[in-house]
């Protein structure tokens, strides 16, 4: 009896203790800790005080509450290799991605956040206002100042020396030696502790490409000099060893950091000491405590996950996305309420192989005949389920369909060249007029040889396969034999990037979308001779098209500042492109898919909300502003 009573007493006191502990920890979450004011999420730190404590990693818990995580999908498809932002081999899409349309900045930060909606640079590590960088008088040096409030996770200040060292280390120790930039940027130097100066490569007494220097501001992270030196030292300066270093000790400046990663998911946790809660930046911390990308088996699995609310933001193509809300009544939305639902800026394109040993592809009449015979409405309806504008809405050119780029050429003077497609009779007439007639083979022939082409794209890319089938149908309809061939991506890419491939005659690849250097950079990638004859070429011009006039225009445009002259040059390029047809776009495609399920979070960007936050997965470029606007729904 006594023992029982004692046990009961012990049990009760245990329960009391647990309850008290629970209360205490609850208090700790809600009341600010006086010793560490910045520890309180949502409250801005004293605007006068800058600086932060070194980050201390919390213990990992496995059952994270759903209401604290923002789940994103479509970015990461396999386990990551590490956290080294200096390497391009980390396969870490959530934390380390440096794209021209805005670097992903939850963990590492660039000086500016690019906004694809208004083509402007919003300051992040840089101080000043929107597009607040300055050019020197002759336009050869671009400079900006580092924000006074910007600090690294180890508690040290972000300085101009970090920016300068990131560049010089990149030239010396990164795999590609900053090759993409070196043709245009001569050096990045620290004028003093806070001023960064980017010096242009000179051509004919002018900066070779000022637009790419601006792109650099929003695309490339600033990394900590001290940490980079440590990284280089411990790998003995060996470029390959540096690229393979997994860098668990990395120092960051962004609002999130590594928390958990395995082959099922990747989780980032908010750094509650993040410098950006200073009033000179965001004035608060981002809402979700965790960011996560679950690794799904394939698109279909990811689509199922967002439809049941396991994913909040999806960057995946979902066929017939409107049915999710119209028919099924799910709390799912896209950036735009109506078709085309997204910001379209990519233009998946079919290239003609100029190296092909088969007759006809060197003849613009054949190329154009195939291009005008294709039923683009069918491609749009079936491959894209109408999730982008049609060529009737936005006539084809070299520009993406956004108004800013459309205004850069004179549509009226080339309108007679812009085809909308499905013009079988017109295509037949074009070939008849060129003397390419149906021969004994039952197909059109040149010098007794029938026209027969291989039409290709990677296997399993369903929308592309559908598009290429429609191209093949068009060819058959005008008397050209078409053989569809869909090899595995690993095989496809080796031929695509080979300068001398003779496997595919008409083949497909995407174009560049939005960045400050567009449309110039896209046109260069589509038409420039720079890429002709180089093997392992990912740059562009996969069809190996050569045209001197185009090259001259591509070289001249970056240095031209007179907008009327620019328009003239762009119009001429469009004219050449639509006359010569070295390649032709099959559809417009969203720059990034951005589908949100609001069953947990709401407050995402939408067209017309006046916030001007771009719909790119809440973490790329200026889209990260969305994280500060989210609330539980």
């Amino acid at each position, binding site marked *: 009896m006594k023992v029982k009573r004692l046990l009961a007493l012990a049990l009760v006191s245990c329960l009391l203790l647990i309850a008290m502990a629970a209360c205490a920890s609850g208090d700790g979450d809600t009341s600010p800790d006086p010793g560490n004011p910045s520890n309180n999420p949502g409250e801005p730190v004293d605007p006068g005080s800058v600086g932060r404590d070194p980050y201390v990693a919390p213990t990992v818990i496995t059952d994270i509450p759903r209401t604290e995580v923002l789940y994103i999908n479509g970015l990461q498809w396999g386990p990551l290799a590490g956290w080294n932002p200096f390497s391009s081999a980390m396969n870490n899409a959530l934390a380390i991605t440096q794209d021209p349309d805005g670097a992903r900045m939850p963990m590492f930060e660039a000086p500016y956040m690019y906004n694809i909606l208004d083509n402007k640079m919003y300051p992040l590590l840089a101080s000043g206002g929107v597009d607040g960088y300055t050019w020197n008088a002759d336009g050869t040096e671009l400079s900006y100042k580092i924000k006074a409030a910007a600090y690294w996770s180890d508690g040290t200040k972000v300085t101009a020396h970090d920016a300068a060292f990131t560049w010089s280390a990149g030239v010396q120790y990164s795999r590609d030696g900053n090759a993409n930039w070196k043709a245009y940027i001569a050096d990045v130097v620290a004028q003093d502790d806070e001023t960064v100066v980017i010096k242009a490569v000179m051509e004919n007494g002018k900066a070779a490409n000022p637009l790419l220097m601006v792109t650099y501001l929003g695309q490339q992270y600033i990394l900590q000099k001290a940490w980079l030196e440590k990284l280089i030292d411990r790998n003995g300066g060996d470029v390959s060893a540096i690229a393979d270093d997994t860098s668990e000790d990395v120092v960051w400046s962004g609002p999130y950091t590594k928390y958990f990663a395995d082959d099922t998911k990747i989780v980032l946790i908010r750094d509650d000491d993040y410098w950006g809660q200073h009033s000179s930046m965001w004035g608060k911390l981002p809402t979700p405590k965790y960011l996560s990308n679950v690794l799904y088996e394939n698109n279909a699995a990811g689509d199922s996950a967002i439809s049941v609310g396991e994913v909040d933001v999806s960057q995946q193509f979902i066929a017939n996305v409107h049915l999710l809300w119209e028919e099924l009544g799910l709390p799912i939305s896209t950036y735009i309420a109506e078709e085309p639902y997204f910001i379209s800026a990519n233009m998946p394109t079919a290239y003609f192989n100029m190296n092909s040993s088969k007759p006809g592809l060197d003849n613009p009449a054949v190329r154009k005949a195939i291009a005008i015979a294709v039923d683009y409405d069918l491609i749009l309806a079936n491959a894209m389920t109408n999730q982008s504008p049609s060529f009737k809405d936005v006539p084809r050119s070299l520009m993406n369909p956004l108004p800013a780029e459309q205004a850069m050429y004179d549509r009226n003077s080339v309108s007679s060249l812009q085809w909308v497609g499905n013009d079988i009779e017109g295509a037949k007439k074009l070939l008849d007029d060129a003397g390419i007639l149906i021969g004994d083979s039952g197909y059109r022939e040149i010098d007794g040889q029938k026209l027969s082409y291989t039409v290709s794209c990677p*296997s399993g890319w369903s929308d592309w396969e559908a598009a290429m089938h429609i191209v093949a149908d068009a060819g058959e309809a005008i008397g050209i034999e078409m053989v569809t061939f869909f090899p595995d991506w690993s095989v496809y890419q080796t031929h695509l990037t080979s300068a001398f491939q003779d496997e595919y005659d008409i083949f497909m690849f995407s174009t560049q979308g939005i960045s400050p250097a567009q449309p110039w950079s896209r046109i260069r990638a589509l038409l420039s001779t720079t890429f002709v004859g180089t093997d392992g070429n990912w740059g562009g011009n996969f069809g190996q098209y050569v045209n001197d006039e185009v090259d001259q225009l591509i070289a001249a445009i970056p240095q031209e500042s007179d907008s009327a002259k620019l328009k003239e040059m762009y119009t001429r390029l469009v004219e050449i492109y639509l006359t010569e047809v070295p390649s032709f776009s099959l559809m417009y495609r969203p720059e990034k898919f951005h589908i949100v399920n609001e069953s947990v979070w709401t407050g995402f960007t939408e067209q017309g909300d006046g916030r001007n936050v771009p719909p790119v997965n809440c973490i790329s470029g200026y889209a990260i502003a969305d994280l500060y606007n989210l609330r539980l729904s």
Partner: protein
Amino acid sequence: MKNTLRQVFRSGKFVTGFVIFSAILLLAVIYPIISPGNPLQMIGLNSFIKPGTYVSVYDSLNTQRTYTFKLPGAAEKRIDSKLSNEDRLNIKDYLLRFGLPEEAVDIEQTHDLLALWWNNYDPELRLGSTIAENRYFARLDDKLAGIFESEDIEVGELDPDTGEYVRKKMVTETDYVNVSDVANVIRLPLGTDNFGRDTFRELVSAIGTSLQIGLIAGTVATLIGLLLGLLAGYLGGVADDIIMFFSNLFTVIPGFVLLILIAYSIDQSQRGVTTVAIVIGLTSWVWTTRSVRAQVISLRSRDHVNLSKLSGHSLPRLIITDILPYIASYVVMAFILQISSGILAEAGLSMLGLGPKTTDTATLGLMMDWAMRYTAHISGAWWAYYPVVLVIALVSFSLNLMNTGLDQIFNPQLRD
């Protein structure tokens, strides 16, 4: 023979299976004859169009004759089609959020309810708690516009010379046209798939192709199995050892994995229907071999075989006249099962994207593959995959039923 057949058709199971199978086969043969057309033609410019009958709006307006009907309740029907009960509840929800008292909103009184809605709905207020809700209210408002209107609709044509609309026709709410007068009507019993193709026509064509695959695969597997089984069983000795060695080898390697590897190594451009069928056949002969061998071993020591041997008959003759007839019923049953498993194997392979070349032919597996790739299950497009699943199940069910029926007749242990 006649007696055997009579016996077979007395089995209820066999007959049921046979009827189902014949019905499916007949559908695959007859439908393309009565309704010819390319099953892979992309007719719809939307994907996953719902099943139903579609009438050309253009042709309906241009129909010569219109008829007048005064149907009771026509207006109510029109309203109900636009305003579901769920919509009414959501309208109420909105009005309560707007601040109206609960008793002021009666969802049964359509006119009052909508009057309240039109008076109080303001998209600028954004009373929904999410983007999705606000957009739903905006869509609802669009949908409800003019819901009570019953004025005649004027159909005009733009005169290109003057730039003015010339009245062409007046349409009143009591005008009807006979569907048979409309030039273009399309009936889609199973809607369309992701490519905008008529799913029913595609399904019928796919049944044909899949049966063909099953037949080829079944024939290949049965022939190999039979030949090896006969040789191993009758010859015995080293020949038996060698054949059994390979059959054991193939037994322990999972057949489907082998199938995937072979299918994967064949380039897609070469992967036609026949190739896939042969590959399936080449990987599924093992069990036939083993059972045939077992049966032959028990047969070869029988008196009539020994007699035949003593008479100096050649090996092929011995096998064909003295052994084969005794295992024929078993082989037929195995063959039926092989057809069924061949169809299932194709479906499995195609689901993994390793089936016959896409979009050149329709097969049951490819239909499932495309439905999955375009996430038909998420879009609620059941017609793109349920009928396919049902057909696969029915074909394999009917074949298995026929097999069980035969088994009951020919297997002495099971015979009543």
